[in-house]
């Protein structure tokens, strides 16, 4: 695939990529934008090269995930080394941020709330399968784990999410 082809394909994928970046950054919008920019830069500078072993979407999602992890690590180091002595850093949690809760509808808020109880890996697999409409195999490629592991995370995550939604009340009970 040529560089221009990659660029146009990435532009077409941009909303989905932003959605994935948002999830990788715990729904913190500014952080997600920065991560996505860094991921684009990696592609255009040639730091991340598409080898064609998988689909472009799978590959780019893995780049985004790695970039988010790097950024988290860098920020942690910065906080430990510098900001501890100068300014108190803002509290960072792995839970969805307030922006997500504010803009979401009731059912989406309930879903986000229920997802908080799942492990990060389970959340990621469910997101890739249900939100991004990937197959479990593609999700495993993005997360760089084995297919069996991804399948286990998917099944366990789905079961836990159902229990949480049934227990907490999703507004779906009335529809049944």
């Amino acid at each position, binding site marked *: 695939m040529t560089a221009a082809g990659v660029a146009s394909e990435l532009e077409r994928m*941009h909303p989905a990529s932003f959605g994935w970046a948002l999830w990788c950054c715990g729904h913190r919008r500014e952080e997600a934008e920065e991560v996505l920019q860094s991921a684009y830069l990696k592609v255009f500078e040639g730091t991340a090269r598409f080898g064609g072993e998988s689909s472009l979407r799978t590959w780019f999602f893995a780049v985004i995930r790695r970039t988010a992890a790097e950024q988290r690590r860098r920020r942690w180091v910065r906080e430990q080394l510098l900001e501890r002595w100068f300014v108190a850093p803002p509290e960072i949690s792995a839970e969805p941020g307030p922006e*997500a809760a504010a803009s979401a509808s009731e059912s989406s808020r309930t879903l986000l709330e229920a997802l908080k109880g799942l492990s990060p890996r389970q959340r990621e697999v469910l997101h890739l399968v249900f939100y991004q409409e990937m197959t479990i195999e593609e999700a495993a490629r993005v997360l760089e784990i084995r297919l069996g592991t991804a399948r286990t995370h998917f099944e366990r995550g789905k079961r836990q999410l159902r229990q949480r939604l*049934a227990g907490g009340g999703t507004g779906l009970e009335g529809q049944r």
Partner: protein
Amino acid sequence: MIAENGGPGEEELRELFQALRREEQRSVPGSPAPGSLALIRERRTRVRRRLQAWALAGCACAAMLIATVLIRRPDPSNAHPSPDVPVASITQWRPPTEFLLETPGRAMLYATPVLEMLPSLEPVGPHRRQQSRNPAQTEPSSPR
């Protein structure tokens, strides 16, 4: 579709995620143009260069500091005093804790006893010794 455990089924879960997706994608920021990416890259490079310059300056300062400390450190091989410096003799030296030995009556241990206090003794010679052996010869006979 309802799952066995009473929660929503797979299709409902999918529908929930899709609804969330539709909501989230209403406010997706625009895709960055190649020009803006170039600007970002330039800005990041500038920041990185500035950080590198600071790091370099910091390293240079640290190196200078270490060099100064190493140069000014006294050489342990030259630790013995020079012959010009007077050294106190060991017989004159007093330990700083000497005052602890100042006990009452200590002066008596070091002072020579005064002999006037003792009973006076006559000089002991050979003649005197003989007399003391035969007191009958020397002393006048007592009247019986």
